[in-house]
């Protein structure tokens, strides 16, 4: 099956595209909506918002989550905030500026039309969330408070203490709960979607899920399927993602014909707590809002690195971000902050017991603002840091180091958020569309909610309107039998290995390969090494992984084993994409391609395109087919990002 990439960008001036497109699309009349069934997979911001909105509109919605409750999806862990071009502080923000900042922050590797729509819709999101009762921070006059975040030179970030993701997700979850109560949405909890079902006509028509408690199989059908299943950051094993975050549904869709775009664009977040030992299970993010008031430094002399921070005099400290980037200082974008921390640690200037971190120091802010103000701004983060490390950050500087956090790559979608499989839509982090090669802080929540509340509910109607009166493919159809057979085969194969090493053992091994060779800095030799090591590890996995118990019960090892099996394949595509992209851009830094100052060197002449990979067979490095969607810039001129 050959795919053709048509981004379907509407014609007309950039600022009018979305408005015109909404008018040009076909509608589904209110009385016809109940005749359509839609399957939504995932209940994070993008999934819960979409399911709730589609339910309100009158569609029959079936929503799947592997959690016990929709409210536990990992959007809940986002701390810092959500961007919107409201310009309440009157500091010069506008839709145009948010658009420009986002496209520049993404290193000119995203679509103008998508990003502009995101900036437009950001205004509606805040209105919607406030009406739902999201308790955003307020000024004493009762109006919404804003702060500057992640390198933005305007204050456009709305926040709810350090729990913005939680509060936004609770808003979307509550809207979803109202629809479940009203009967428009059916909830399937503790269900892992394992296959996307594609009908004989090539259109997505349902899913196969595994009930995590009973091991039973569930078949559900719909006129369209929406994947809102998040990113693949757990391919690194150690990441800030939740333990169960996975690529399975997206990867199974890829194997059924959905192109996977830009898998090498992964974001390594600069402010995480460094690992303390080899058996650590995950990394904890400290919101980058901390960089507003914290100063990042390492000792100038390697000999000082083992000393307590307080014993190192001001003159012997290297505030390296302030030194190298005087205009942005500690607020440079995430990819730049991360790479510089790596450079410092790699050159022997790391601090902490394992010499694997850099300092984030609040002493000056505490002097300037007082401990009370610092506590009000960051109290819960400081408490969290102390619980994890046993150190009091009011007295000694925090230690931070970058960790896998977010993935800009994902399933390829057109302007309507439709993948290369007709009827299969992808929203939120699971798609690739809006962040280019690097995502700005406080933009993930914005994109998840933009897709879920405002974009998908409009564009999916344009698709459904062409299928009015068509019945859903019954779940007894042979296409469902075949998809279930694929899943059953995988489950029985993995259960029958009865090998010697646990799933976690293999996930850790995979993570090491991907982190070492496809992490913050990549090079040809390392990527080639990864491309030989990953298939070898995968082969060993299928011969040696040990999953005890039965598939017909609550079996958490089997749950993990199926997820890791898909990461083993997706990791190879990630490395393949990273090897082919002979340039540095955003989160993808190829050591061969840098400026004399060590900054990312893009190659717009050869790589100004979206790399969309089509599944071609089990030998991922050889069989996968590359398709290119050229990026056309009509209003902005790509320039080298400079934050000096």
């Amino acid at each position, binding site marked *: 099956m050959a795919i053709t990439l048509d981004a379907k960008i509407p014609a007309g001036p950039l600022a009018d595209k979305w408005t015109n497109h909404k008018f040009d699309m076909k509608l589904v009349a209110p009385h016809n909506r109940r005749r359509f069934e839609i399957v939504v997979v995932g209940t994070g911001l993008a999934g819960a918002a979409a399911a709730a909105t589609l339910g*309100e509109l009158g569609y029959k919605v079936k929503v799947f989550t592997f959690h016990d409750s929709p409210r536990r999806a990992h959007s809940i862990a986002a701390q810092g905030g959500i961007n919107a071009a409201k310009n309440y502080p009157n500091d010069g923000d506008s839709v145009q500026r948010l658009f420009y900042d986002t496209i520049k922050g993404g290193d000119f590797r995203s679509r103008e039309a998508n990003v502009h729509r995101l900036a437009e819709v950001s205004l509606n999101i805040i209105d919607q969330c406030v*009406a739902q009762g999201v308790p955003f921070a307020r000024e004493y006059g009762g109006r919404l408070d804003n702060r500057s975040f992640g390198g933005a030179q305007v204050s456009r970030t709305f926040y709810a203490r350090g729990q913005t993701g939680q509060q936004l997700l609770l808003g979307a979850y509550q*809207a979803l709960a109202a629809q479940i109560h009203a009967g428009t949405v059916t909830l399937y909890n503790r269900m892992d979607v394992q296959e996307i079902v594609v009908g004989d006509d090539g259109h997505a028509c349902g899913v196969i899920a595994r009930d995590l408690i009973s091991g039973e199989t569930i078949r559900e059908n719909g006129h369209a399927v929406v994947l809102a299943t998040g990113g693949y950051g757990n391919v690194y094993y150690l990441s800030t993602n939740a333990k169960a975050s996975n690529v399975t549904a997206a990867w199974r869709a890829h194997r059924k014909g959905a192109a996977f775009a830009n898998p090498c664009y992964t974001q390594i977040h600069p402010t995480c707590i460094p690992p303390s030992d080899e058996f650590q299970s995950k990394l904890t993010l400290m919101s980058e809002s901390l960089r507003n008031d914290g100063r990042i430094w390492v000792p100038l002399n390697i000999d000082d690195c083992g000393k307590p921070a307080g014993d190192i005099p001001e003159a012997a400290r290297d505030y390296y971000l302030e030194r190298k980037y005087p205009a942005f200082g500690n607020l440079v974008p995430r990819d730049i902050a991360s790479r510089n921390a790596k450079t410092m640690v790699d050159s022997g200037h790391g601090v902490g017991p394992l010499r694997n971190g850099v300092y984030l120091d609040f002493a000056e802010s505490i002097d300037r603002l007082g401990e009370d103000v610092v506590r009000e701004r960051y109290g819960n983060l400081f408490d969290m840091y102390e619980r994890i490390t*046993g150190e009091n950050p009011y007295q000694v500087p925090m230690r931070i180091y970058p960790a896998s956090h977010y993935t800009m790559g994902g399933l390829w979608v057109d302007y309507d958020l439709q993948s290369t499989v007709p009827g299969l839509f992808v929203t939120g982090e699971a798609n690739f569309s809006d962040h280019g090669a690097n995502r700005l802080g406080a933009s993930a929540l914005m994109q998840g909610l933009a897709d879920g509340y405002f974009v998908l509910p409009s564009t999916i109607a344009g698709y459904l309107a062409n299928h009015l009166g068509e019945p859903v493919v019954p779940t007894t159809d042979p296409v469902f039998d075949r998809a279930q057979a694929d899943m059953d085969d995988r489950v029985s194969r993995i259960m029958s290995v009865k090998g010697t090493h646990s799933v976690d053992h293999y996930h850790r091994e995979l993570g090491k390969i991907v982190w070492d060779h496809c992490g913050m800095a990549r090079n040809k030799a390392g990527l080639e090494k990864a491309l030989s090591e990953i298939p070898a590890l995968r082969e060993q996995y299928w011969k040696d992984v040990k999953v005890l*118990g039965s598939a017909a019960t609550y079996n958490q090892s089997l749950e993990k084993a199926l997820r890791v099996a898909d990461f083993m394949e997706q990791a190879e595509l990630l490395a393949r994409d990273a090897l082919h992209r002979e340039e540095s851009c955003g989160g993808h830094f190829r050591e061969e391609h840098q400026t004399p100052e060590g900054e990312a060197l893009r190659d717009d002449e050869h790589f100004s395109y979206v790399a969309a990979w089509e599944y071609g067979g089990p030998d991922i490095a050889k069989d996968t087919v590359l398709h290119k969607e050229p990026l056309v810039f009509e209003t902005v001129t790509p320039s080298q990002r400079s934050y000096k």
Partner: protein
Amino acid sequence: MSKTLNLTLKVWRQDGPDDAGHFEEYTTSVADDASFLEMLDYVNEALIADDKDPIAFDHDCREGICGSCGLMIDGQAHGPQRGTATCQLHMRKFADGDHITIEPFRAGGFPIIKDLAVNRAAFDRIIEAGGYISVDTGAAPEANLTPVPKDVADAAMDAAACIGCGACVAACPNSAANLFTSAKMQHLNLLPQGQAERWRRSEAMVETMEQFFGSCTNHGECQEACPKEISIDFIAMMNRDYLKSKFANRRRSGQRKSG
């Protein structure tokens, strides 16, 4: 630098909701900078190596925000550290040679699924009954149109910080869910946006809660166990709103009976 702790664990094992269940004892050695759940990971790795069924427990974000994890540790919901979910509890709170008893959150409203994992779906039913503000997407007015006094927004946020873990229920001698329900309700009842549905919400949430959980007799254990340190003041506010709702929800004079 980290120390190694040698521990004896007494862990509740139960195959399913209908199994009687029993304690099993395990010994383990773990670095004191490991988290409590990482300690259980090590124990599970050892069990798997030994061909024994690993201990099932719920967890996900391991950052204290998703509310998935929850264990009774030596009889305390989420263990000995105040204001801390199980995943954020670290082993440095324990001493070398300690014996630790680990049980699931026990309550009639939380049937056990397996070992330490319980079914907390009753919480979702309470939210579905009325724990929301009905505002269809697109129907919202400009966000700054309605000022919300800072202290009101802050109090609503204090309530909204609830992570829905169920520690309050597990800690309560009556297995009451009043702290959870009141936090969810008062988050919305405090805000101007939540007024239109305030009385309907209050009545529906309380009555749904009572289908699953016991009654509150003001022990205050919930507030002590809460990883987000939510105040039982919200329970008093809920009780007041529930009482008022019984009057407010009567048919208005002149109002027709609706179906």
